[in-house]
């Protein structure tokens, strides 16, 4: 998180940004309940006024976390793209070099092949790293699920106390559960394929 984001958080939520790192903790009611009934200490009503209560502050922070991780992930992707392009360029230069008269001895050709094969390995690893960046979207969706729970607890408390503001309008739809959301590529493939297979054969029959 850079200084501008810290400033934005301070301006929007009125509290030090580091305090409520909610993501890991169980959604303890007090985490949401504490600020909810009383109007937020400094809530300068942002333009669209979506987050003027305590839960809004937590939600806004989580939204900032996801926005920042998405932005930073794209920077990593840019770097990986750059590496990939450089390796491709290198491969092309080496291919040209192989045709050069001075590079025709078996020893040199062998060395060049080894360099080419190392380049291919780098390229494969770059692609692998790009694929692993899926973790950002998966983490984002897990955070969305946590936000959903926080909003439910918050609204329940508002109902219970008969005071305070309910959560603001709709957000992105979320998965029913994150319990099955995996982190290892393809860990749910066999399960999904078997459901698809069963559905298709049921449809046929």
């Amino acid at each position, binding site marked *: 998180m850079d200084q501008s984001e810290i400033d934005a958080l301070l301006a929007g939520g009125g509290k030090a940004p580091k305090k409520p790192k909610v993501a890991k903790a169980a959604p303890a009611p007090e985490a949401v309940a504490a600020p909810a009934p009383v109007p937020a200490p400094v809530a300068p009503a942002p333009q669209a006024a979506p987050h003027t209560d305590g839960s809004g502050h937590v939600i806004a922070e989580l939204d900032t976390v996801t926005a920042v991780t998405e932005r930073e992930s*794209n920077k990593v992707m840019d770097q990986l793209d750059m590496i990939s392009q450089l390796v491709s360029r290198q491969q092309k230069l080496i291919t040209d070099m192989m045709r050069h008269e001075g590079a025709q001895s078996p020893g040199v050709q062998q060395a060049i092949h080894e360099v080419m094969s190392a380049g291919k390995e780098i390229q494969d690893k770059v692609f692998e790293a790009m694929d692993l960046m899926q973790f950002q979207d998966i983490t984002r969706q897990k955070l969305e699920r946590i936000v959903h729970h926080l909003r439910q607890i918050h609204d329940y408390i508002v109902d219970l106390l008969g005071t305070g503001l309910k959560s603001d309008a709709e957000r*992105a739809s979320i998965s029913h559960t994150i319990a099955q959301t995996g982190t290892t590529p393809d860990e749910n493939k066999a399960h999904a394929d078997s459901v698809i297979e069963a559905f298709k054969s049921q449809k046929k029959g």
Partner: protein
Amino acid sequence: MKILIVDDSSTMRRIIINTLSRIGYTDVVEGENGKSGLEKLGQGGVEMIITDWNMPEMDGLEFVKAVRGQNPAIPILMVTTNAAKEDIVEALQAGVNNYVVKPFTPETLKEKIESLLG
């Protein structure tokens, strides 16, 4: 072949585009939710759709239903974190042709695309 990718995560769209380019599909259009997906589809030329489920404004399921209302034949692959059995069934009932659970490997995406096009 022009492929429409609908996902609200720009990182995920890049990953899918990268994977597609590695398997030979470079003609790609992007949408960041169901609504913009429908707009891109309306511009014509799309022969296959890869869509996420959980998105703001119009989610993937609504998007699939809207697409099926106007185009029953276009292959649709859903790529989502939703792994529950009832979600997969719901998506298939809505008109999805195949389903990939994130995170996926490029091999899986390739396999699913080829099975849809084959």
